[in-house]
């Protein structure tokens, strides 16, 4: 630091580099404060600021990098360096690396630390806290050898941690001292409804339960827990998530005032007794308390940013309303949720134990306005109700329908963002109003939610307002008469799903017929393969006969993968990665005979590169002779079902994962879909087949299989979500059948299952309702469609070789038997590869 400092600059030191610190740096950058302030921040974690609110997404689809909050202009950030002392007399801070930095202003944004109750055994190997990405990585690494895990704490963070353990495939316990889950946010009835949801996921809940000891095994490792009532449970791993404590020791050592229950005491300017020192976020004690949520922290950051720029903003408290989705259950609490602040309040409540829905609205008896409430199981009305509690929206005269379930007779229609006043807050984390967003949409011609988020900053905090932002965008665009079509291309004014339904309902069997009835022009490289895929999914004939031949991408046209030099690669199917010595020998011999480059793929197969069009039939003739078949590596279709060796050989395997993988691969081979499909089966929780990164992942348990869906590797890795646990072979296959067919029916073109799932209204719960409970009444159709696929499958290469007509296309030139003279190989590491342009001149 100092290198870029101007002589007139004063120095601001920020201690801590969490979300609130990051927000402060962003605000300062946005206000151009770097002309007057040289900003230096220290964070003790090795990563720069990241999104701690969505920490558990690390386990269900996110990644450490995906959580990072991004760079900030103009600030010097030292990560992995902790400020260990503040010398107020000399106005300096000292770090653990011995660095000393002078400050003109100091902001403490040190956050909080997890509270670990003082029980014996709490430091044993296998005990963790849940606060940082490093914590998550330690938990994940340790969990690989574990069967069961327990979370101490049934609050918001505890349930997040429980979700993480479930995602790791552990049998999960939650231990809560209070008589109900989430005691701060919900009441007894809400807690009971929440409990039933969570138990349905297989989590064992122990409420009113005090942990007295962590039982430690012979090797110093956690082996169980003992409770005050004498009960014991066996667990291999414990996560403490029993609340947080402000991290105020640095301030205390510097002689600053500390609140009775912790926290650096500051005034409404967020200033400590030392006018040069401020405190913000979870470490600050302001307006009579500490604030353990991100939104008030951001408000404090805004106050300090304003003060450093000469303003006079103040912090007078914050709205603690929250809406969360924990373990797939929506939970919200807003305003005066318990009616505690209003003696003359009355409740209107609705409780459906069967559907698992609870709504409690707290109404001020005199004014008849809603002042707070609790929602469990369905928080779809949260935005409107919380707006009423804030006073941004007036409460209708008839309150009872607001508590009734959506869709029930007499229930209020979902109240949208339309009803909100212009000054109403949409993103409470960042203080962004409806007017702000509408203005930005009009001024900057924003057309998608991502752009609105980027332009306004709305949704960059907890993200809970994004549905409202999306809805608002839709309304604004509709009002402005702007259409945002999801049309496939200029030839069809329909989405892929629309076309799928048209083709299915009208029994359309050709592109020409579809184009004539519903399209225009000749078609193009977008709609032709998309329609070809739909026709393959609905009709399942040989994909290259008749008119279909003209629709296929070159890969499908030649049943091989086009490479950059115009040659193709050949990938025979190796179901489950299981291959015989004779097949291996044949593959090697074929590669030698045709001069092909060979490589092992990521999907446990062998890829042969450098085949010319006219060589493909001869190569396939040899492969089919030893019982191999098309691997469909060229198609938007099932690729592989990867597997580990499983119980058959492995000491740890609990089921025959290879056998299941082979069964699944043979069932779904040749199934064409909006995009490629990758599956995997692991024989135990060690997950050697990496099933949680696949479209469909299966992990063996002692009792059967855990089914994961909608994972992804590749460019946008996403963790699969746990769909069902401990199911038998029959249920496993049935659920996968339906999942795949539902995806094929409804996804957009080139949309992987992960993206499709992320956009699915109702998320995992809705997917379960469709597939398990048959809520749409389409399971019979999905089952029949898959049965037809399985019955009519044929190897496309075998069918091609049997027909001289089909073989006719496999030549480079229609008027010559010469090969393409421009295809040239050179040798590298003992194998052929395409010549580079700079080498071609030398040959």
């Amino acid at each position: 630091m100092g290198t870029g400092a101007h002589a007139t600059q004063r120095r601001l030191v920020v201690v801590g580099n969490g979300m609130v610190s990051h927000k402060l740096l962003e605000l300062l950058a946005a206000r151009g404060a770097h002309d007057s302030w040289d900003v230096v921040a220290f964070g003790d974690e090795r990563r720069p600021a990241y999104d701690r609110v969505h920490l558990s997404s690390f386990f269900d689809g996110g990644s450490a990098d995906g959580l990072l909050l991004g760079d900030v202009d103009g600030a010097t950030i030292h990560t992995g360096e902790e400020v260990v002392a503040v010398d107020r007399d000399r106005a300096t801070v000292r770090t653990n690396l011995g660095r000393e930095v002078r400050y003109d202003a100091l902001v403490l944004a040190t956050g909080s630390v997890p509270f670990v109750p003082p029980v014996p055994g709490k430091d044993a190997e296998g005990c963790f806290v849940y606060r940082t990405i490093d914590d998550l990585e330690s938990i994940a690494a340790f969990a690989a050898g574990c069967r069961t895990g327990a979370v101490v704490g049934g609050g918001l963070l505890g349930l997040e941690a429980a979700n993480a353990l479930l995602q790791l495939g552990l049998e999960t316990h939650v231990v809560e001292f209070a008589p109900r889950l989430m005691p701060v946010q919900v009441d007894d009835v809400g807690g009971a409804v929440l409990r039933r949801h969570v138990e349905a996921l297989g989590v064992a809940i122990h409420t009113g339960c005090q942990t007295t000891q962590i039982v430690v095994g012979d090797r110093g490792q956690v082996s169980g827990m003992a409770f005050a009532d004498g009960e014991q449970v066996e667990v291999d791993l414990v996560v403490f998530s029993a609340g947080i404590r402000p991290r105020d020791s640095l301030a205390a050592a510097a002689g600053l005032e500390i609140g009775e229950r912790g926290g650096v005491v500051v005034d409404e300017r967020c200033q400590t007794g030392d006018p040069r020192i401020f405190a913000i976020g979870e470490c600050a004690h302001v307006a009579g308390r500490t604030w353990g949520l991100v939104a008030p922290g951001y408000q404090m950051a805004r106050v300090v940013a304003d003060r450093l720029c000469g303003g006079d903003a103040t912090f007078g408290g914050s709205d603690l309303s929250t809406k969360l989705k924990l373990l797939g259950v929506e939970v919200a609490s807003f305003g005066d949720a318990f009616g505690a602040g209003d003696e003359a309040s009355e409740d209107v409540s609705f409780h459906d134990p069967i559907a698992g829905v609870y709504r409690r609205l707290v109404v001020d008896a005199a004014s008849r306005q809603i002042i707070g409430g609790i929602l469990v199981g369905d928080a779809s009305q949260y935005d409107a109700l919380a707006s009423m509690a804030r006073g941004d929206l007036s409460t209708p005269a008839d309150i009872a329908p607001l508590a009734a379930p959506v869709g029930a007779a007499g229930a209020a229609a979902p109240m949208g963002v339309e009803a909100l006043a212009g000054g109403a807050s949409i993103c409470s984390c960042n203080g962004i109003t409806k007017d702000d967003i509408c203005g930005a949409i009009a001024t900057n011609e924003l057309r998608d939610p991502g752009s609105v988020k980027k332009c306004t900053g709305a949704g960059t905090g907890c993200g809970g307002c994004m549905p409202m932002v999306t809805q608002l965008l839709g309304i604004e665009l509709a009002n402005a008469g702007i259409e945002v079509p999801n049309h496939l291309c200029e030839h069809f004014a329909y989405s892929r799903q629309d076309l799928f339904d048209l083709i299915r309902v009208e029994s359309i069997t050709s592109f020409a017929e579809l184009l004539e009835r519903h399209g225009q022009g000749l078609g193009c490289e977008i709609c032709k393969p998309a329609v070809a895929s739909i026709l393959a999914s609905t009709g399942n004939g040989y994909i290259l006969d008749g008119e279909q031949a003209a629709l296929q991408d070159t890969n499908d046209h030649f049943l091989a993968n086009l490479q950059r030099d115009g040659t193709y690669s050949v990938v025979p199917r190796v179901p489950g990665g299981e291959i015989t010595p004779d097949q291996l020998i044949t593959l090697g011999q074929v590669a030698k005979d045709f001069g092909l480059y060979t490589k092992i793929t990521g999907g446990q197969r062998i890829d042969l590169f450098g085949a010319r069009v006219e060589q493909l039939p001869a190569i396939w003739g040899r492969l089919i002779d030893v019982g191999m078949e098309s691997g469909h590596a060229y198609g938007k279709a099932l690729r592989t079902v990867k597997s580990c060796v499983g119980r058959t050989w492995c000491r740890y395997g609990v089921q025959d994962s290879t056998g299941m993988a082979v069964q699944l691969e043979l069932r779904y081979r040749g199934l064409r879909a909006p995009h490629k499909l990758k599956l995997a089966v692991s024989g135990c929780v060690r997950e050697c087949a990496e099933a949680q990164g696949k479209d469909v992942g299966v992990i063996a348990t002692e009792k059967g299989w855990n089914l994961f869906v909608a994972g992804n590797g590749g460019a946008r890795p996403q963790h699969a979500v746990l769909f069902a646990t401990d199911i038998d072979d029959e249920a496993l296959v049935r659920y996968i059948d339906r999942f795949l067919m539902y995806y094929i029916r409804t996804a957009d073109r080139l949309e992987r299952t992960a993206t499709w799932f992320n956009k699915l209204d109702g998320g995992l719960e809705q997917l379960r309702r469709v597939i398990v409970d048959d809520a749409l009444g389409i399971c019979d159709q999905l089952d029949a469609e898959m049965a037809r696929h399985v019955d009519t499958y044929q190897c496309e290469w075998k069918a091609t070789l049997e027909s001289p007509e089909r073989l006719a296309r496999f030549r480079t030139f229609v008027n010559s038997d010469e090969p393409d003279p421009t295809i040239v190989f050179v040798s590298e590491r003992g194998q052929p590869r395409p010549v580079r342009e700079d080498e071609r001149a030398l040959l």
Partner: protein
Amino acid sequence: MTVTESSVWVDVCPLEAIVPERGVAALVDGAQVAVFRLRSDELLAIANCDPFSGAHVLSRGLVGSVGDRVTLASPIYKQRFDLRTGSCLDDDAVSVAVYEARIADGLVQLRAT
């Protein structure tokens, strides 16, 4: 020297050798030409070399339309070319050579240049 018309038109293949809305590659005097057959049996031909990748593969691309223009999308990186003018729709600076093609006595013919 007098050159009769028949000497510059080269027979390539029977019309049925090309599936409607697909193409084939032909060697004409050492040059690689991609010939496409539309549904109307109109024939359009361009150079077979994809200028973006250097691979001789345009004959394996997909025929389509953009407004009134008949296009061909390269199978390598999907750039589109106007089959009548050879100009690339996705990069103004790039175009491919166009060849004359016709049907004579049920045979596809290309005019050698």
